């Protein structure tokens, strides 16, 4: 059962994160084509190697339906596997395992997984742009008639991610205790990593634990420096058959374990908001790979907030439930440390490139395993754990990656 490691990541590309105000505006189709070209070049492949497509469709600019067909047509490739993934920040991880599964099933040979996340140019009388503006202000909350969150959450101001994650953190504090200094170590260690990554949005801006604790309180107990800054970006990776991967330009990165769990849209309606979906997702991924958390050489953990990363450490099994704060104090999370985590800076310091944010973690794992992480290169770099998180702990996924 499960993936047999017969598919591998062989190429990756991403736009350098940029503030929305200065990033170029491009059609999503145009971004897809450019990112695909860059990722294929990285892999040493050409456009016509692609016969599979996984794409995030929820905010796709040029179409609301029939997105894969439009994208395939625009690229100029025919597809034997085509899919829209709608799992928010978990989409990156979800696309990679879906691509691997499609390849192992023999449906296709090479899959482009792509997420355009720069804004598109506005047209005259652009109804879509107005619609996007209207819905985006509700931060992923549906405002449609009959949507439970439109009816039961929005009238009270329950909206978007900050307060949802804050309420999870408050509940954690009441049940297990809370150590703001320990959690701040995540932000500080990741900023250290970002200061060794010229691509990171916060490159050259180190911070201290006190900086985190003195940053603006957004929603108890979350402070500004524990929260990602959304930026423009976009990313693509190429997944192909293991035998083709051997002919690529870089060390193949095999997908040997995966798991996914979707719990609830709002953590309010989860039976226990502290039992996060990454638990079942990670257990599945590790058992599929036949490995344990302690076997990993790195953890690239979805970090929209420090609390998200901490709960993932616990529920994925890197430490026991309730021991997360202690774990953070006992370990050095930098790329020089004993528990290298988010070695690119994490989304907190690399930049959260919208729905492509989760791909920054996948791509850092690829670069580390391929030995291309430059200054941040880990000495042991064969096995990586990667997680993705969508919504407010709504949906999570895990990957186990291994260098050939």
């Amino acid at each position, binding site marked *: 059962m499960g993936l047999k490691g017969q598919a591998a990541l062989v190429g990756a590309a991403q736009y350098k994160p940029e503030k929305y105000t200065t990033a170029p505006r491009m059609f999503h189709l145009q971004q897809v084509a450019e990112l695909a070209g860059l990722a294929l070049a990285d892999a040493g492949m050409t456009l016509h190697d692609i016969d599979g497509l996984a794409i995030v469709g929820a905010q796709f600019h040029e179409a609301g339906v029939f997105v894969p067909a439009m994208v395939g047509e625009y690229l100029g490739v025919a597809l034997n596997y085509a899919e829209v993934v709608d799992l928010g920040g978990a989409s990156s991880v979800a696309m990679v395992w879906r691509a691997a599964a499609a390849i192992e099933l023999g449906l296709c040979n090479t899959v482009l997984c792509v997420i355009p996340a720069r804004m598109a140019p506005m047209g005259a009388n652009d109804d879509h742009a107005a619609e996007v503006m209207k819905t985006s202000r509700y931060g992923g909350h549906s405002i449609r*008639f009959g949507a439970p969150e439109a009816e*039961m959450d929005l009238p009270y101001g329950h909206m978007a991610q900050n307060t949802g994650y804050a309420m999870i953190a408050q509940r954690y504090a009441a049940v297990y205790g809370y150590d703001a200094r320990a959690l701040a170590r995540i932000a500080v260690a990741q900023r250290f990593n970002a200061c060794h990554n010229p691509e990171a949005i916060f490159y050259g801006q180190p911070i201290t634990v006190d900086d985190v604790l003195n940053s603006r309180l957004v929603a108890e107990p979350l402070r500004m420096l524990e929260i990602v800054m959304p930026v423009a970006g976009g990313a693509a990776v190429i997944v192909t058959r293991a035998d083709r991967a051997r002919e690529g330009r870089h060390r193949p990165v095999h997908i040997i374990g995966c798991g996914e769990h979707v719990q609830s849209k709002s953590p*309010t309606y989860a039976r226990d908001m502290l039992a996060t979906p990454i638990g079942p997702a990670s257990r599945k991924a590790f058992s599929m790979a036949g490995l344990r958390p302690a076997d990993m050489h790195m953890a690239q953990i979805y970090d929209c907030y420090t609390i998200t990363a901490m709960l993932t450490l616990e529920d994925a099994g890197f430490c026991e439930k309730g021991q997360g704060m202690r774990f953070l104090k006992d370990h050095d999370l930098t790329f020089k440390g004993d528990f290298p985590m988010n070695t690119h800076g994490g989304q907190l310091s690399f930049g959260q490139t919208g729905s492509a944010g989760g791909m920054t973690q996948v791509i850092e794992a690829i670069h580390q395993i391929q030995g291309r992480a430059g200054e941040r290169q880990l000495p042991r770099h064969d096995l990586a754990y990667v997680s993705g998180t969508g919504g407010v702990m709504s949906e999570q996924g895990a990957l186990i990656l291994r260098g050939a």
Partner: protein
Amino acid sequence: MSWNKPLPQPTPISAPFWIGLKAHQVRLQRCEDCGQWIFFPRAHCPECASPKLVWRDVSGEGELYTYTIARIPTLPEFTDEMPQILAVVQFDQGPHINTTLIGVQESDLRIGMRVRPVFDDRPGEVTLLRYTSIESQHSAVIAAEQQSSSQSTAELVSQVSRRKISCKDITAMTSLVSEAFSEWSNEYLVTQEIIDEFAALSGDDYWIHTDPAKAREQSPFGTTIAHGMLVHALISRLKMPMDFEIIDFNNMVNYGSDRLRFSAPVPSGCRIHARYRVKAVESVRSGVQMTMEINVHVVGQDRPSVINDQVILYM
């Protein structure tokens, strides 16, 4: 004043819940087959998939499951509620509900504390279900008409005895310069009526200020907002507590502003207040010039809506 926040649109499935709240009664669905209590309203039991659900009256009481205090409004429409205590309550029957807590001091908040319903009739067409501590003195109902009176301007400003400072005493004048801001002024309610009057007076009748229906649909703020210049002008209505009085001048001139920023919106229906600090004092050819940094905030908001470095010239 119309309710300018998102409102629930009851569906055929959820209508009994909202009808109950209108009558100040909390109702939950219960599965006739497995006995499970259910929230939010559904057409099936999420435990056993049975469609046999019945509505039952309950006390609405429960425990505080978790909460946070929003320091930045989740939507501009909620600016007037800042800081807002967003909460999840666990009904005694088990299910969780999203709500806000009112009538509770921040320092008294405890996860697990007993809470009881407060029926908020202010939106008019629907009643919202808020919560308060079981020990709170807060009334169980917020009546629709309570809104305007409860937000009427408190004109009371602490009158401290004022030090008299001669504008000719540059040392004393300079000693007023401070990094720290004063206490807050009185509060003032920025109503749609005032915004409309300012629109008529100034000629700036752009819809983002004056058309609540269109603003709800198309404005990034989801509601109408006051003109920046209106909020600036309303500084005159905000009496800031000053512990000094400048004397010994022949003439005092409002020389204008070194810096005027509209750094955050003031949605219609918000209360504003202001505070100041003396930012700089300098001798100029004609006398002494004092720069007061005046910050106008929506009540409860950290970020100022107007920053005005007002220059006053004493001659």
